[in-house]
């Protein structure tokens, strides 16, 4: 079985040329960080792709997240409501930002609020959650706007889907640019916001809070994206269309072949999606065990476990595993073979157990 721990190698030769083309600009300027040419171009390109909102890039996802949370919440020790009981990363980021996270409890059946709008604690100064389905997002945003509370959406592979619900002035969004995301910078994140004041504050905060050469205005840290990573992100954007059509073809191929694995199917993906992942809903068996077995075969699979508000309910989440999407045909065959093997073993185990 091939090692598929670094999935984004599809279309690599084109992407390599593009990467080298971009990074050469930084070489020529001898500027490899501190808002060099690739970072400036990347922010401009992302802002244009997202219809002119402000765009800021950060060194990695977690730093971008907690820094943004801190300055959206405005004050130390403010309350952050995370209407998503599995939001451990968001909870961790709130703690790092010196804020007080509130997560709703998970109900006895694992349900909590897939399609509802839960009560927000009185201390709420900021709401942070994965980007929910459009109807739920609309509810959240209306409520937030009337209470004067900002919302930060936390999402990764949403490129192409933003037209389904554009950002409102009170809702900002942070996206991952990890090595398996459609915009891959190896590591990094970007914030989309219509809040000019927030954008200007975070521009300083990501560079130690400096306003000018010597003067520090407030506490920041080093959250600057370097030029290597920015060049890679630019190369990803340049090749996004080619990548999406190839991923779509692979996805369809996989979906057809998966019919041979009893009861399993791929979760559907919106037409305009960049196909950021292959999510398999298993017909039977335990998703955690299956993911572990696949990992032991060097397939970078993991169980979804977490429901996504309005998109994936709790029951489905327990039966789903995410597979790398950059599977070439050979990898698809061998991954399917592993899935089938596991499936038949599981059936045999079940029979033995009954005996």
């Amino acid at each position, binding site marked *: 079985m091939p090692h598929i721990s670094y999935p984004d190698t599809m279309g690599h030769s084109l992407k390599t040329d593009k990467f080298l083309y971009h990074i050469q600009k930084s070489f020529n300027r001898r500027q490899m960080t501190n808002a060099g040419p690739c970072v400036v171009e990347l922010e401009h390109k992302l802002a244009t792709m997202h219809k002119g909102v402000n765009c800021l890039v950060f060194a990695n996802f977690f730093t971008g997240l*907690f820094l943004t949370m801190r300055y959206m919440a405005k004050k130390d020790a403010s309350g952050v409501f995370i209407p998503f009981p599995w939001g451990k990363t968001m909870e961790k980021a709130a703690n790092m930002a010196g804020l007080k996270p509130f997560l709703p409890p998970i109900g006895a059946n694992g349900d909590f609020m897939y399609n509802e709008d839960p009560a927000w604690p009185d201390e709420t100064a900021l709401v942070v959650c994965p980007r929910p389905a459009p109807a739920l997002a609309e509810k959240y945003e209306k409520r937030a706007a009337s209470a004067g509370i900002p919302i930060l959406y936390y999402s990764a592979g949403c490129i192409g889907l933003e037209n389904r619900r554009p950002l409102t002035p009170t809702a900002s969004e942070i996206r991952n640019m990890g090595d398996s995301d459609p915009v891959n910078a190896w590591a990094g994140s970007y914030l989309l916001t219509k809040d000019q004041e927030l954008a200007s504050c975070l521009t300083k905060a990501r560079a130690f809070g400096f306003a000018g050469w010597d003067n520090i205005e407030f506490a920041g840290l080093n959250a600057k994206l370097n*030029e290597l990573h920015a060049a890679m992100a630019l190369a990803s954007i340049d090749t996004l269309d080619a990548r999406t059509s190839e991923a779509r073809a692979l996805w369809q191929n996989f979906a057809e072949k998966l019919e041979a694995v009893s009861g399993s199917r791929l979760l559907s993906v919106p037409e305009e999606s960049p196909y950021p992942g292959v999510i398999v809903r298993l017909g039977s068996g335990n998703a955690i065990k299956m993911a572990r077995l696949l990992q032991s075969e060097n397939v970078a699979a993991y169980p979804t476990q977490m429901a996504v508000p309005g998109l994936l309910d709790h029951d489905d989440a327990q039966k789903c595993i995410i597979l790398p999407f950059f599977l070439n045909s050979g990898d698809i065959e061998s991954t399917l073979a592993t899935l089938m093997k596991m499936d038949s073993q599981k059936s045999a185990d079940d029979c033995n157990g009954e005996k």
Partner: protein
Amino acid sequence: MKSSLEELAIFGGRALSDKILPVGQVNLPDWEKFQKSYRPLLRTGGASKVEEFEERMSSLLNVRHVLAVTNATDGLMLVCKLLRLKGRIALPSFTFAATAQAPLWAGLEPVFCDVDKNTCALTKQTVEPVMKENDIAAILGVHMWGNACDVAGLAELGEKYGARVFYDAAHAVGCTHQGNNIGNFGECEVFSFHATKVLGTTEGGCIATNDQELFREMKKMRDGDSCIPGAAPCAFSPAQAQFGLLSLDLFPEIKNLNREKLLLYKKRISDLPGFSMIEPKWEEEHNCQYAVFKIEKEEFGLDRDSLMDILVREHIHARRYFVPGLHKSPPFNQNGKEPCLPVTDYLCERVLQLPSGANTNLEDIDKICSLLHFIHENSKSIKAKLRKD
């Protein structure tokens, strides 16, 4: 060379240098070599590159374990969390902002100490008063410009007051103290690979330690697998690692060249009144990356800030370090209890860094020194003209 005041750029003359001379600039690898090494990396993902870089750093620093991280600030935050520090941390005010900001984000309260006038770093004598008056959980020393702080004295204080000791070694890649590599002192030491450092990965940093348990836990934290509360993932990418590997190949040559540059500065300013170099410890292994000077305005004839304004107009982008000291900067100056740090204040008014990075050659340094002599010799008239204009 300038022969009259009117030839100074600040009075309308042409700048001394056609190119901008920043204090430090990235040491870029050869473009062909860069391309050649990144093509396979992009094809394979280069998963092994990070470990390869860590191993080579470990051998350069002569330390058992090295963990590469996103940047040195993240490295310092990681160490504060890793050591499970709570409460107050003693550190210098005369340092870059990240030294104090990282503990702050990790939930600690920085308590600022004064520094030694010659080394610009913490000593037992400058830290002990703070230890006596406060309940200090840790001491964070800074090896300013590659010169080690009083590591023996700080270790003694750590022992005496039950405080953990670790170091910000951002400036100190490839430097030794009494023949021992920096990287081996305290519980761990954090290095920077920012583009302006002697060894760059564009952005980046690493933590060096000889403690295997500590290393295991910090690796988990970096990779997001730790259960320590608030542990922040801060991975280092194969792309950064590859850049670091290319920089490591250049390192010996750059170190030698840096030494030549500083020796030239030293020679050329030796007879310049009021202008003294904060010298690297020549007897040690030293990266010689920073050309840093103290200016006594009475003897030199001009104060540091006026001199910097003149130099910047000549395209010599000298920098003041560090103005003001952190104890006078937000958010640390907002509790109404500004500590009394006379040596820090003294240094903050006088220290100036001059160009010595990749973009600055020996000829440039020679020109800069001649200009400094010209400015000193004409300081009275310059001052008068500046006042008039």
